């Protein structure tokens, strides 16, 4: 977890789901993509990333398969399942509501 800011509960899940919308990625790829799409705000460490991946796979949001990484190394790739996409939609909507509410609350 990044020292920059504490990840809210559930935020990591949402970021992982989001990071996988374009293509299947392996663990490091997911970590990089998250850093990329949050402009480096979140730097996910292995100790948080992998438990989350395994938990989400067991929940049926992700599916995994072994493939070849860019370095010719075997790696485990994760992709979104239908349930994962649905989860992403719902969580994004929820997140939008919360952040809107928080923003307006802080401006009031």
């Amino acid at each position: 977890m990044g020292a920059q800011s504490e990840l809210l509960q559930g935020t990591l899940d949402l970021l992982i789901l989001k990071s996988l919308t374009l293509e299947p990625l392996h663990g490091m790829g997911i970590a990089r993509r998250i850093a990329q799409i949050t402009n480096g705000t979140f730097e996910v460490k292995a100790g948080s990333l992998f438990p989350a991946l395994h938990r989400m796979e067991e929940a049926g949001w992700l599916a995994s398969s072994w493939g070849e990484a860019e370095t010719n190394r075997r790696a485990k790739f994760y992709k979104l399942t239908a349930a994962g996409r649905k989860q992403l939609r719902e969580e994004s909507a929820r997140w939008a509501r919360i952040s809107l509410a928080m923003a307006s609350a802080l401006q009031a």
Partner: protein
Amino acid sequence: MRYFQALWRNLFRREQVERELDEEIRAYMEMTGARGGIEQVKESVRDVRAGASLETLLQDVRYAVRTLARNRGFAAVAIGTLALGIGATTTMFTVVDGVLLKPLPYPEPERLAMLWERHIPHGELDTVAPANFYDWRAQSRSFAHMAAVDPYPDFILTGAGEPRRLAGAAVSYDLFRLFGVRMALGRDFVEAEDHPGRSQVVILSYAAFARYFGARADMVGRAMTLNSANYTIVGVLPRDFSLVTRASDFQGRGRFEVYTPLALASPPEAWQRGTHPLCVFARMKAGVTLARAQTDLDRIAGMLARLYPADDKERGIAAVPLGQRVVENVRTALVTLLAGVGMVFLIACANIANLLLTRAAARQREMSLRVALGASQARLARQLFTESMVLAAAGGALGVAMAIMGVPALVRRLPADLPRAAEIGVDWRVLAFTTVVALATGVLFGLVPLAPSLRTGVRSVAARQSRLRGALVVGQVAFALVLLTGAGVMAKSLLRLLAVAPGFRTDHILTARLSLPPRFTNGYKFGVGKHREISRFERDLVERVRDIPGVESAAFTAYLPLGGTDNSWAFTVEGRPPKPVGVYDVAHYRPVSGGYFETIGIPVMRGRGFNDRDTEDSLLVVAINESMARMFWGAADPIGQRLRFGGPQWRTIVGVMGDVRHAALGAQPKPEMYVPYAQVPNVEARPTIVVRTAVEPAGVLNALRRAVAETGPDVPMDEVATMKQLVYGSADESRFRTALLAAFAAMALMVASIGLYGVMSYVVSLRRREFGIRIAVGASRGAVLGLVLRQAGKLAALGIAIGLAAAAMLGRLIASLLYGVKPFDVATVAIVSAVLAIVALMASYLPARRAAQADPMDSLRYE
């Protein structure tokens, strides 16, 4: 992947899952160039994946099993002790459950009750007069069914080999409906059959159906010959049906083979209000409470008292829940035994707790090390807990196995008249009980070593442990004392019971019951019999029997002492002012033949016994027992006075006989009046022949059988027993519970002494250095020996004191089980306390001697 798929994979494809996890994380590490921490990442993944907690549990269990396997001695002792304790407790619980706790084996058993006449002046319950039953049934509003059982009719079966007596019952047509039982074959009685003249139908018990008719289904609908009349077999009861009640309710005849309709006259005749043969069962309507039913019955009792004051003025009606009635007089004994075995179990548990404490002390260093390395106390606690749970589970499983083997062995030794014995068996209820017991002990043992070891600093642990051990030993000694006292007073009570002089001879007496066929009687219905025929048969038979080599004399009685049967009549004494209407003097009534008193050895205290000149044509005579003479004549001489019962004729008192114990060895004698068989007011169709022999009584049995067959080929003979067997059987229940409780007490004594030995050994090992130093600075070895023994003595004395207090308090709970001895019998208590003290001293002597032999050089070197 769905959760259960994942769980399955994680638990059963563990290797693959682990391999893939390793490869995945390794790849990540290589790609990012990070170093180390692979194991931590893997561990954090393991912690979240499906079945993680289960996996930890399995890990703990595996670890516990490994630890225990390394300490085989400890594990064997702990598991063995637990298994014995749980096995014994489970076995006893199985009996208690079958007899006391299980619901009765009928639908909605809580709606079943027995109805009794209650004699208002002294509150005793009495069986019911047929006419009263008729009115109860007609007038009550609270019952869906009310049915009566007349347990007396016996039927002689002919036409199927030798004549045999079948134990019969005449029952209301809806008795089986009341119990919710369906016939296995054929049909139930119908209402139309429950009337005089239409009742020549029978329902057979399954056992009788199998025994006499080979369970041939085509027999249903056919006729059988009972008492020389034809009865149609209409139905057969299911194999497992029995009328559950107290053996004594049916005068020891619970196992009926044949049922006929009761067929009461409607309306009943007046005399049917003065005789009381019926047991009445009732099923309350749904939603009716016992209290409401009782109110209903009270109203009816009040009405009958006004209408028939002569018979019913002093009679109320009592509804007793069937479940309660059945077990009333065995409850105390069984609960006492369960409590006893429970105490043994607790004593055994204390030993295991001590073992665990010792182990915990030995592992103190291991635990401290692991705490220092960062293991949380909760994690350690969980592990110790798992270990004790594994112990408890193993002990529980072995215990159940022991119970499964032990229950049938115990059931074979149960007293014969224990109700519901057939329902005793290991089932899910018993397994649930054992599981709870095992879990509870597991939790308890998990906590024991934690209590002193995990709280604060290491220094005080030893001290706190010692205190806990001391408390355990004190508890053990206290429980052992309670058990020993209980067993002691029960044994004393049994000895008192067996030492009772029953008032008659018990050696060289053979008894057997005859069933007189219809040619001697007027059916079974309270009718007046054929005295002349009976007398002739009796004289012929007695003559033949007297001729048997080895026989000294023979005689008849209708109700043999300790034989389980009895009868009584209301009587009036000539010349005394009449009692108020409805108030009677009652005495037990004993038709006997001439020569009975001499044969069975009842002494004539005054006047004379009966002889062959007391016939149906001579002066009507009666002999009373001492109790009756004392109660109704005081110091005056009753001989020559006249009394009457059962008819208008006066009977002259010709003799006063010694008292006998009739109902049981422990039952006080009641007023009794003897009448010559030839002069009885009614017929007793099942006399007992009593034979006094000069040889071993069983030796004349075959000759007796021959004599009966020659005198009356149509007279079945059964219930053969020597008087010794009857006396022995009379103390059956007392002997059973005394033997069990004594066994428990012996176990308690042994286990508690092992406990004391263990604790003193431990204490000595802790203080070995101190003892060495004491000896080095001049203490004599004797002084050290005394020091240790004094410490043990203090614990034992405290335990004995607490045990005495507990025994004094608990004693009154078993008072009803004792004969001739107080529950807190001072002599018994003194003896068992002394025994316990001596055993405690012996158990601590060995450790004390070891202390006294402590080598001072060892201590000095060590310091």
